[in-house]
């Protein structure tokens, strides 16, 4: 018995790989990134008898070519880290297509074990897969599993352990026919001349990849002594044709074995097909999607209210406890009360929204509806250069940009995701509404509703325009090809959804929390010091910065008070209202603030509208910035988001101030 082995989990997307991974490792897991890329790496440990087992969850892939980073990560791990066993998780309801990956895993020459997952569903459909024959023909042990119920997992581990013990090296070769085999033999002969290369990569595997014109494999032989010789052979071969012939051959091998292994492979997916007929209906498809989005929105924001009130109440009483405790020195009390507790409050206040939304997204994804939503919306979004999946985060952005940006995780392509993230802050979130209500109510009393509506439309227009602009300039290209599998509908399990919600939500707390706290702390320092100045007043650093900024915002018709309010709006945009209250000396009372604003000669309807547009666009709040940083993994894009927002806001406000008087005329 070995006392320590390493197992990698491989499989197509959506086959239940993470379900099995979670069931095997329980809470003994940690999430990191694969070196150098933003693909997530999940690993965990478990034990069986005396053996400690380390399990690595590879990214879900359809094949092991170099189509995407996920595929490269998965195959490099298998080839270079050489796990003791690879468990190939197969969706038994979709056996034939899944076997394609099996053929590729076989070529890697690692010990393999097949987990026939979703066996419950397959059996319900009437599919019967003969595991003894799989063992006979493929020389791979297969285990029946039901990941969601934890069935067969012990047996799976035992099979993996046995495989690791007994077969140090497996050669499952697929014959590609005389012509291709001759090429393979020729290349293998060349590759074996470089012992360094031959010991790192299985020569036959590398030869096959080279024959398929795989760029990543080409890179692997670049620094070798035999590069020229290998290239010479490859130059004489039409790799494109060979590639098709080899794929064909793999499917042929599968097709030949399939009828024997899978005695009744049922291919129809009746129930799913029936639901799809309705939810992708020509006339009803989009209305049904929008209605379901309303439900997601309603749940995210309505159900969160009592939790948010509770957080508010708790933080509020903490703050007043600190204030009433007569703590000395006074600045420490202010630091604790306003700085730390206030900042903590602004981290916690998003948690109900975020967790509920992530839970709903997970339900949508696990049930299979998300794929249909992308299908239904794709044409529309494609027109602005985004994939169908971008629609949902944009919509959620109307509630709050923080969960919306976390929700972009469902978009696979990196550039598609980046654009969706960058335009999200322009979707007018709920926190901006109090600002509109105050200003529109004060300056446009008769048609406040229309003004607010115009602002929302302005945000959407800027978002669409920006998406278009980014596609034409910094992130060129088209949305990733829409090759999306339509998984069968499944009843989502609460356990999986909670798990997904927790994984993502916990990351928010850990990664974004710190940034939000730091932001809140900085603003507290600016508003409080020099010690003795009234919080946020002209004498505080914030006030001084406001005066410094005044010349900059003067062309927009804003004075230093507004500059300070905007500075505070960085914490959360609704704070703009409160800060204006402090600065105009009216405190919490909104009606006297309205009066004070109307009495301010520097503000008129045009300036007020420009201010609202500026608040809408100028920069993401600190929490949004924190998640942008977390999700893009780059300060550069975070900085870009701020700079771009400010520039756009400035331009738009400037145009409003200049052109506004002409349009608004007499008002």
């Amino acid at each position, binding site marked *: 018995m070995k006392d320590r082995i390493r197992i990698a989990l491989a499989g197509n997307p959506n086959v239940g790989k993470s379900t099995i991974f979670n069931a095997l490792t329980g809470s003994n897991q940690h999430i990191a990134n694969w070196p150098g890329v933003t693909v997530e790496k999940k690993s965990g440990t478990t034990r069986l008898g005396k053996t400690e087992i380390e399990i690595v969850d590879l990214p879900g892939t359809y*094949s092991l070519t170099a189509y995407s980073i996920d595929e490269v990560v998965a195959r490099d791990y298998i080839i270079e880290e050489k796990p003791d066993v690879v468990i190939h998780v197969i969706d038994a309801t979709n056996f034939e*297509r899944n076997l*394609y990956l099996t053929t590729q895993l076989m070529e890697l020459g690692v010990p393999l074990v097949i987990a026939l997952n979703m066996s419950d569903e397959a059996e319900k459909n009437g599919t019967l897969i003969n595991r003894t024959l799989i063992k006979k023909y493929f020389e791979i042990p297969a285990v029946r599993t039901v990941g969601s119920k934890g069935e067969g997992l012990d047996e799976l581990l035992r099979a993996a352990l046995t495989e690791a013990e007994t077969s140090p090296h497996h050669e499952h070769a697929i014959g590609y026919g005389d012509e291709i085999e001759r090429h393979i033999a020729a290349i293998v002969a060349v590759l074996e001349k470089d012992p360094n290369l031959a010991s790192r990569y299985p020569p036959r595997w590398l030869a096959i990849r080279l024959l398929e014109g795989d760029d990543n494999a080409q890179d692997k032989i670049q620094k070798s002594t035999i590069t020229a010789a290998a290239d010479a052979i490859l130059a004489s071969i039409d790799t494109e044709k060979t590639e098709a012939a080899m*794929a*064909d051959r793999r499917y042929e091998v599968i097709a030949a074995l399939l009828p024997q292994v899978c005695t009744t492979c049922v291919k129809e997916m009746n129930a799913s097909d029936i639901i799809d007929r309705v939810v992708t209906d020509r006339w009803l498809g989009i209305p049904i999607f929008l209605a379901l989005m309303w439900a997601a929105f309603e749940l995210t924001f309505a159900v969160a209210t009592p939790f948010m009130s509770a957080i508010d109440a708790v933080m509020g009483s903490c703050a007043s406890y600190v204030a009433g405790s007569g703590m000395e020195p006074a600045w420490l009390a202010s630091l604790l009360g306003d700085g730390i507790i206030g900042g903590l409050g602004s981290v916690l206040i998003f948690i109900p929204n975020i967790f509920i939304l992530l839970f709903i997204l997970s339900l949508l994804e696990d049930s299979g509806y998300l794929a249909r939503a992308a*299908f*239904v919306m794709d*044409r529309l979004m*494609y027109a602005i250069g985004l994939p169908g999946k971008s629609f949902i985060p944009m919509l959620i952005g109307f509630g709050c940009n923080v969960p919306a940006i976390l929700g972009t995780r469902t978009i696979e392509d990196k550039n598609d995701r980046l654009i969706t993230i960058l335009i999200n802050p322009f979707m007018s979130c709920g926190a901006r509404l109090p600002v509109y209500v105050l200003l529109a109510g004060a300056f446009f009393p008769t048609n406040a509703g229309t003004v607010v509506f115009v602002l929302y439309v302005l945000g959407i227009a800027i978002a669409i325009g920006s998406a278009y602009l980014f596609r034409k300039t910094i992130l060129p290209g088209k949305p990733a090809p829409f090759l999306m599998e339509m998984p069968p509908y499944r009843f989502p399990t609460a356990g999986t959804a909670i798990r997904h919600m927790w994984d993502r939500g916990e990351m928010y707390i850990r990664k974004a929390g710190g940034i939000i706290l730091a932001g809140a702390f900085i603003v507290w320092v600016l508003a409080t010091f020099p010690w003795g100045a009234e919080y946020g007043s002209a004498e505080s650093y914030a006030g001084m910065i406001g005066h410094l900024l005044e010349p900059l915002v003067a062309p927009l018709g804003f004075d230093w008070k507004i500059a300070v309010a905007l500075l505070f709006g960085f914490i959360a945009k609704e704070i703009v209202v409160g800060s204006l209250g402090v600065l105009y000396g009216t405190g919490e009372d909104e009606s006297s603030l309205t009066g004070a604003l109307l009495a301010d000669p520097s503000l008129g309807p045009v300036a007020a509208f420009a201010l609202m547009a500026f608040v809408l666009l100028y920069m993401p709040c600190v929490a949004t910035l924190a998640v942008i940083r977390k999700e893009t993994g780059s300060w550069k894009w975070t900085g870009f988001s701020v700079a771009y927002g400010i520039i756009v806001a400035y331009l738009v406000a400037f145009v409003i101030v200049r052109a506004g008087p002409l349009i608004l005329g007499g008002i």
Partner: protein
Amino acid sequence: MDDSEERTGSVTRCEPVTTLDMISPPGSCRVASISAPAMVRKRLLALGFIPGAAIEAVRAAPLGDPVEYRIKGYTISLRKEDARLIAVTPGCA
């Protein structure tokens, strides 16, 4: 040439080659060849779009694009723009 021709030839009366986006649902055809850029071609091959494979156009999205296809017993949707890269022979179900 290769055996894909032989296979399609053995099926009764195939119409001339066209592209997959021209097959409006419901309809069926077989793959003749793929002329996509390398990356997309690899993915398509892995997904079972190999010469000779039977494809059934199941339904189009509400706005006509993308279209859902059934191949090798599962369903996948493609934008018309990408489906155009796949040459098919209609009527060879």
